[in-house]
């Protein structure tokens, strides 16, 4: 039962414990990091994103769109991670590591590698637009807010990215295969 001061507080702020933010949005942010950066740097980008989000969380307005906020942070962290990787002169279009020994079966892994390579081959802005719209579920106006530019430009970047993926990745056509 809530005491009176608790009830008053209840009306003042509507913020959930950060644990619930991690549980609810952690998986989608991971897929975004993976799509934008590839498997090798996704862990670091995810960690940096949520650490940074935790720091800023008390100041986030109670009615803010948490998903869009997290994608904005992930976007900046992905740029940082890429810059750091470039400074270390690590080859960019490397073959991704096996993500997990107990992970997907050989065929799934093959598809995953193909898709990672296809995503890595996209221009950065297209890859980001595809990830933020299709994986994070942001509307194009939200994607534009993260990337800069107009919603139309974001829509075009995502459409171009999907068209390129269709050519490079879906050309191997896995349709109809059992999963």
């Amino acid at each position, binding site marked *: 039962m809530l005491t009176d001061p608790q009830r008053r507080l209840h009306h003042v702020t509507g913020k959930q414990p950060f644990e619930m933010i991690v549980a609810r949005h952690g*998986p989608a942010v*991971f897929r975004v990091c993976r799509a934008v950066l590839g498997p090798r740097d996704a862990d670091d980008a995810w960690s940096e994103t949520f650490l940074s989000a*935790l720091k800023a969380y008390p100041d986030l307005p109670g009615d803010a769109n948490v998903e869009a906020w997290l994608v904005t942070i992930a976007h900046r962290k992905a740029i940082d991670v890429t810059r750091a990787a470039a400074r270390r002169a690590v080859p960019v279009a490397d073959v991704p590591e096996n993500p*997990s020994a107990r992970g997907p079966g050989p065929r799934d892994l093959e598809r*995953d590698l193909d898709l990672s390579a296809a995503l890595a081959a996209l221009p950065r802005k297209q890859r980001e637009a595809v990830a933020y719209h*299709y*994986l994070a579920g942001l509307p194009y106006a939200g994607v534009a807010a993260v990337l800069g530019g107009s919603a139309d430009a974001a829509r075009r970047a995502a459409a171009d990215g999907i068209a390129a*993926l269709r050519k490079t*990745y879906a050309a191997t056509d896995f349709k109809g295969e059992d999963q």
Partner: protein
Amino acid sequence: MSDEQEAAGLLDALPAVTGEQLRALHDRLASQADAEGLLDVAYRTLDTPVGPLLLAATARGLVRVAYDTENHDHVLTILGRQLSPRILSAPHRLDPAAREIDEYFAGRRREFDLPLDFSLAHGFRLTVLSHLAGIAYGRTASYGAVAAAVGHPKAVRAVGTACATNPLPVVVPCHRVVRSDGSLGGYLGGLAAKRALLALEAA
């Protein structure tokens, strides 16, 4: 199938994060947050003979123990508003508390030796709670006796309220406060829990 769905389907091969990966990422986040002073409230649950207890600690010490009947998710949400929303499941900070509470329920511990954070108690309630630690293991005191002991002999009901809102049950022994006629009175964890604790201490 719409173009949107078909396009999204292209990305299906991108593997979803597994529970195991997410746990590893979460644990890394919790330890980094702790190291950088960003983990304002750490929590875990502990199975006990009186049901699962939620244990929460700030950097200063154990700040909240909650019974299952209080609804742990709800308690965490309230903690987020009262203390800070920077709350993560981070069992490590609660290791000492979990160990001592385990020992208590195993009958091997009669006093808790843990840093406590009384941020959630104020004024007269805090005075009452501070006094409760003085009621020895296996003993009881009446609400009236506690009221008299803290210098407000007429504040019997306020003592009852202080016990009912004890943020640290079990560790701060409000279960040792009973009615003057010897009946149990109330308990925030339910009377069965109060009876179990008193029986444990009487053994």
